[in-house]
């Protein structure tokens, strides 16, 4: 049984709120076993939060937003471009912070919660429910800057909501190449490298450029991925390794 089939079965009771479910069908085009394993050491981590729902039909859209977030979590998890924070972790964080489940998951709060989860990006979504149609919007937020990195939307008949979820996920991750944040994914520089970098800063402040360059290079020798030291070397005209 495919991963997608399991997902559909899991959310079927909720989706019944929207429309009669289409017959569950196996999707042979994307079996889970064919999904290349993401390089978790380099791909960025995203956290998906419950979608906010606006219903013009008077129905309570809370469960819809939660179900669509779960579906989107699974869709994104199947793609190699990102690594997705486990849904249970997200739920647990929200519950421990006693956030009102029906409350609006605005972007600022999503960014802060994603940081707490160790994610570099957060995915927030909104659902627009009309009597016969549905619209899904997705936004990808950089937790370091709070800026929207990507947005995607799909709309269609309510009875095609499952296809809409897949479509919006496809569009959302198409050619998606998010940089992994060094602070989150890379190890911290060792103390010796930090000390060398700090010595470089002191020498630079005192105008002892030669010694500053020497220290920045030492920091890079101890930790080749030391971005700050590399930037300092460029600033000093000492080249970067």
């Amino acid at each position, binding site marked *: 049984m495919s991963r997608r089939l399991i997902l559909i079965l899991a959310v079927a009771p909720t989706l019944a709120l929207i429309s009669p479910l289409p017959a569950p069908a196996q999707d042979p085009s994307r079996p889970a076993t064919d999904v290349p394993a993401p390089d978790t050491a380099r791909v960025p981590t995203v956290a998906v939060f419950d979608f906010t729902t606006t219903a013009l039909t008077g129905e309570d859209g809370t469960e819809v937003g939660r179900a669509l977030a779960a579906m989107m979590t699974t869709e994104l998890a199947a793609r190699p471009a990102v690594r997705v924070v486990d849904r249970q972790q997200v739920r647990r964080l929200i519950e*421990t*912070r*006693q*956030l009102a489940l029906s*409350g609006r998951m*605005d972007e*600022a*709060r999503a960014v*802060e919660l994603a*940081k*707490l989860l160790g994610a570099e990006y957060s995915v927030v979504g909104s659902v627009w429910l009309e009597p016969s149609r549905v619209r899904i919007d997705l936004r990808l937020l950089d937790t370091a800057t709070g800026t929207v990195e990507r947005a995607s939307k799909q709309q269609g008949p309510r009875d095609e909501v499952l296809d809409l979820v897949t479509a919006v996920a496809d569009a959302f991750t198409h050619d998606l190449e998010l940089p992994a944040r060094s602070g989150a994914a890379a190890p911290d520089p*060792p*103390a*010796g490298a*930090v*000390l*060398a*970098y*700090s*010595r*470089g*800063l*002191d*020498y*630079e*402040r005192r105008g002892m450029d030669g010694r500053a360059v020497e*220290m920045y290079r030492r920091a890079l020798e101890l930790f080749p991925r030391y971005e*700050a030291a590399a930037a300092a070397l460029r600033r000093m005209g000492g080249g970067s390794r």
Partner: protein
Amino acid sequence: MTPSTMHRATAVFVLAAALAAAAARVPVTAQEIRFESELPRTLVFVPEAGGSGVAASGVGSFLIEAGFPLVDPALAHTAAQRELVQAALQGDEGAAVRLGRDFGAQILILGQADWGTSPDPISGTLVTGTSDVRLRALRLDEGAVVATAEGAGREIEATDQAARNGAIRAAVDEVIEETGFLGAIVNDWEANAWTGRGYFEPDPGSVESAVRRADGIGPGIAILGTRVRPAEGTDLTTRGIGVVRRSEAREADGVANVVEIEGVVVGRDVAVTVEGEPASLEPVRAVEAQRLGIDEGPASRFVARTTLSLDRDSVEIVARDGAGNTRTAFASPRIDERWAVIIGIGDYHDGLIPDLDFAAADARAVHDFLRSDAAGPFEEDHVLLLTDEQATGRAMREAMFVFLQQADWDDLVVIYFAGHGAPDPNRPDNLYLFPVDAEIGSLASTGFPMWDVKTALRRQIAAERVVVIADACHSAGTAEDADTGNPIGGAFDDLFTPSRRLTLTAADVNELSYEDARWGGGHGVFTWHILQGLQGDADADGDGIVTFVEVASFVKTGVGHATDGRQNPQHSGLGDVPLAVAGAGGRGEDAGDR
């Protein structure tokens, strides 16, 4: 000498081999107590409201990771009842500098961490914490500020505490990772040699302290020795360690001791009175002045004899110079309370450090003697015994820096150490006693530096009369191998400037210290003879009171004879102190004739 007497010496050679394996060469000449390293010994003191210590902990953790020898901040806080600590906590920089010196630091990182929290403006359920951390680094040889920095942090969390701690950590991280603060400390440390000027206070009551006072207005006075004659017609004369202690005064109304006082005054045209009576003065000759460490200014020796009733504590000495400046000092011929730290370590954790068979037994025997009638006895809660597993580096520090703080100026402190001592193979100028948890490959962080012994004695222990007895295994060097000689004995001699602080070490330079079962069933020959002497054998003048000088003389002769001249204990210091009552017991099973 039979092969069985070589146990402690054999341990010396094994240790020397281990040290040699850790370093190419260890010179034998370094005897001055210095502490040299690529990075300075640092104490971090960053008070913050709420007292959670997040900032200090954050800075300290990084420094340890970076290889700084860190002065144990817990040690400083152990003495939190002291006014000095309280003043430093409240931002008194002078108090903080003194605190840093008191605990042996060369750099003091001093700062303040401010913080605040507020509800998350959006949800009202999360808490936003903000923090500002300001740090300054001071070199403690001259008190110069070598680095300053500020950092700001912000954190959103579920609780006040988590948000506060997160914000402070973020601010500290900013200082460490994004400023040249720590770099400036290291750069300065490399560029400017440690001078040590003004670092150590003179020993309390020492000649050096008198000379320093004489640098100001008025003469300086140092007591070189006191002697209390037993009062006639009262049993009090043989109580305690042979003289009446101040605390016993109320029991002997109307009784007085005859006391003799010898001292030195520094200054021009000085006259001295003792209890209002003129004292006889004679110039200190050049050779004697050199021995006393008096480089400048005329000095005179005075002697006086007076009576001291049992309801009085001290004798008043007044010096007046030719310019009319006066200085008053007080001598306490009687010892008030007595304190002791007794350490014996033979069972080391590090397999590279050879065990000693009888070091712990030596310590226990000394302890038992001090608790016997012959020694007073020392009060139970005034004696701290640390053997083997108890004698960790932390425990030794607390003993020296905290326990002995209780001693007052007119008390007597006895410090006894039996165990290993050696220079750091990577930094031969740095000398260490080995706690039970010492690691030979990382003595800088696990050894007990002689620097700390000196710091504690100069800055923590107020008692003017101190007796240090050390059998640091090869406390006087490894004779047969000049490259692995050991300067630790010389370091004990360097503990004190001329004063009534006395040292007795197990052997001379380039001699070994021996232990064997034939001495009291298992002791070091040095400690065994100390015990014999204290129990009465050393009472050369037959007055019933065994003094330090008598014991030292007895031990020198006895140990030299017992080892066919291979081991010769050394002693230094001025004056004398009574230690025991001859024939009053104290020969426990362990200390019997064999």
